């Protein structure tokens, strides 16, 4: 049930990202990012529920994480702006991608990419906090009406919420599979739901901001 709620929220966020008028240039990254998310989830769905291939589906996430990190950090770098930000973006991009590739090779492409998620997650938490603290004021607009506020909060909640879960999920699955799945439902899918709700709100805000300016 929670899986379908998660898929519905993802699909909704994707539709909103296409439908919304982009109040700023960097927001145009999101339809592409969410398209990758939808494709990844669709592939996982086919592999797991149609073909019944269980561990191999994790390969999709090993490929998806670097793409997601690249697009998201690009969004934050373009939102925060500045030469130093762009330098930081390129350096961190190199570091995170290298680490993800190393971890995938080291731990195997069919293992749960918890470490990969955490490596990308920690850097994205930093990007989110910086973006949150450097939101440029818009006249007659409260902070909660600005898209970057919801996007930052969404990723902040998602990556910080799933941080400990990502560490323990694989080990827990080996010893207590039921508990691992139930935790995954509550923590991972829960924080994912929050993320996609936040993204949808951000796109609606973007539309309103566009109309009011």
């Amino acid at each position, binding site marked *: 049930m929670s899986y379908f709620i998660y898929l519905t929220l993802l699909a909704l966020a994707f539709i909103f990202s296409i439908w919304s008028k982009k109040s700023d240039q960097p927001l145009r990254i999101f339809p592409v990012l969410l398209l990758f998310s939808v494709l990844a989830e669709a592939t996982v769905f086919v592999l797991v529920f149609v073909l019944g291939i269980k561990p191999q589906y994790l390969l999709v996430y090993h490929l998806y994480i670097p793409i997601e990190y690249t697009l998201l950090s690009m969004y934050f770098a373009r939102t925060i702006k500045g030469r130093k930000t762009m330098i930081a973006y390129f350096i961190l991009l190199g570091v995170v991608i290298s680490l993800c590739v190393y971890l995938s090779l080291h731990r195997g492409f069919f293992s749960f990419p918890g470490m990969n998620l955490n490596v990308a997650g920690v850097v994205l938490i930093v990007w989110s*906090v910086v973006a949150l*603290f450097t*939101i440029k004021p818009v006249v007659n607009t409260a902070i909660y009406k600005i898209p970057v*506020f919801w996007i930052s909060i969404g990723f*902040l909640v998602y990556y910080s919420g799933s941080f400990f879960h990502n560490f323990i999920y694989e080990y*827990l699955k080996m010893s207590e599979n039921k508990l691992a799945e139930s935790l995954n439902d509550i923590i991972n899918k829960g924080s994912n739901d929050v993320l996609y709700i936040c993204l949808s709100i951000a796109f609606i805000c973007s539309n309103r901001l566009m109309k009011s300016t």
Partner: protein
Amino acid sequence: MFQSPDEIYVAAIASAMLMLLLITVITIAVIKYQNRYRVHVREIAELKYVYDQELLKAQLEIQERTLHLISQEIHDNVGQILSLAKLNLNTILIHDPTPEHEKISNTKDLVSKAIADLRDLSKNLNRDYITDHSLIQLLQSDMEILKKAGEFNVLFEVIGNEMPISPQRQLITYRIIQEAINNIIKHSGGDRIVVVMHYLPTTLEITITDNGVGCDPNEIMNSGRGAGMHNMQNRARLTGALFVFESEPGRGCVVRLRVPLN
């Protein structure tokens, strides 16, 4: 994992701490945004103020140039023609007291008056003339002209020692006083004008009072008839002066101007 209740407590405390941290981060971000927003709004207001001031300066500059040009035209062209006409009239030799002689004599008087009036008008419009004379001299001259016209009982008083005022500020202050006196002449319906200049250590207070029919200042400002009033206010704002207009129906009007001297 979670083999004992302690571990569950630790996980619960860790989650609570995490949520607390998130809430703290969001709260700080919101507060910081509010501060930046306030600064941003203030900056926009300051920019708008500077822009308005510049616009007003440009408008007044154009107005002054136009007035200066008109003044020069009156002095150099119309004034010269009238002087020539008067000269021609003086050359006509008629000794007998005929009706033509009387007409020519009257015409000479009229031309002389026109020349004098135009000279006064030219002075009033001329920026250089205004900045070359002190505000007291200018107002004394204007009050004399008003007295001569005979329609108003004029009282001009200066309290304190005259202090210097920058030429630009003097020009604008003088234009405000001109506008106020013009309004009295056109709309007051009274017969008395009192102008008081009070020199204080850092400011010059000017009060222009009449005994006319008065009006409701709010109604004037809201009815769209207060263009002159807006002009005076804008000019005052440009010099950093305080402009106050007080009136009540049937009780005349008072214009108060407080001009900074430095």
